[in-house]
């Protein structure tokens, strides 16, 4: 359908707003993850650009800490997620067709909730 220029502009403003509100919290989490020390107490809308070599060296400190230092359980957590999701999908793929059959053969409407 053809739209007038006004509605076209409104449409794209709506598109932009929806994309912005969807992505912004995720974006903000990323730029916060790159902050170190007291930088966390300053609200910034853009990523904090490292100005010196020393700052640049600490850019990924949080990621390094999560992955390799501390009690180092995060790699294990990732593996747990992979393990659980693999088995969930496998079992669900095995059971889902049967659930569908149960729905089909059951005359009682209440069986739809199973």
């Amino acid at each position: 359908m053809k739209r007038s220029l006004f509605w076209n502009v409104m449409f794209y403003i709506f598109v932009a707003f929806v994309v912005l509100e969807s992505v912004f919290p995720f974006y903000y989490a990323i730029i916060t993850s790159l902050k170190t020390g007291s930088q966390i107490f300053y609200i910034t809308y853009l990523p904090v650009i490292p100005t010196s070599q020393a700052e640049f060296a600490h850019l990924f400190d949080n990621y390094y800490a999560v992955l390799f230092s501390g009690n180092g359980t995060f790699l294990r957590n990732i593996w747990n997620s992979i393990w659980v999701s693999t088995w969930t999908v496998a079992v669900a793929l095995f059971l889902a067709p049967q659930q569908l059959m149960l729905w089909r053969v059951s005359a009682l409407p209440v069986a739809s909730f199973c």
Partner: protein
Amino acid sequence: MDNSTTLPQLAVETPSKNELFETRRRSAWIFLSPMIVTLLVVAAFPLARSIWFSFSDASLLHFKEAGFNGIKNYYFHKTIKMDSGAILDKTGGVLVDADWWNAVWNTFRFGAVSVALETILGMAVALMLNATFKGRGFVRAAILIPWAIPTVVSAKMWGWMLNDQLGIFNDILLKMHIISEKIAWTADASYSMFAIVMVDTWKTMPFMALLILAGLQQIPSDVYEAAEVDGIHPLKVFWKITLPLVRPALMVAVIFRMLDALRIFDLVYILTPNSSQTKTMAVISRENMFDNDKLGYGSAESTVLFLILLITVIVYMRFAKVNLEGGAQ
């Protein structure tokens, strides 16, 4: 609900002493048995156990030897004679618990507002995604981000953004002159429900949009072409064509969302754990079971929660004539 038209496709033969029929019937049961066993183990057993606990005096340490307690967890009334001769009336139980009914009220308030918002916004976004424009694939992917992030993570993210002193949300609103002073969104009792609804809407609107979009794409394009030839106003096209045709898919989406909203737990538990303004049925039930060590009482609450959900679904299905078997028709 009228099921008679969409019923059994599996065993359509009229029951006869036909040997073939018997064999097929037996093999159907054999094929179905893993699912039935799984349902019994993972659905029926926990539900039955929870209902049993609700009639017992179970606590966390003594749930194996829990004894039958009658309906005391639901309602009891006793008169205690004091030594002074005064008579004390005491009533208790879930059904007269003001905290519990406050939680029920919170849950339904939350459910009604968030599902309504998600449906309207989801419909708007679905209509947008159904139109053809440049970069549609990118927009579709971007919109799915909130839905792909685990609720626990997004609750923490939003908790930080809604922080009263250091949060960016206050900063944006201050810069836009919408608010004049910083607001403690999650801690202030008058704003905490707003915060919960907002984060939930942010998180679940993409899901609604996708379900509605699936319904929109099933509408044949020739009805729109006919409307365009006739020069019908777009708003009228929406009310008279799009809405009635997308209604079956919309109704299924709303009931899924409603069930999900009424058992909300994680978002409230992380964002506003102790606010009586946002405490929902699932949150208060868990609190009684594990924090207060009243497993029986908490189970009574979750049993009532289950009944409330069941009644909601039945009323909704009657009211909206949803057909879960056939989907959109």
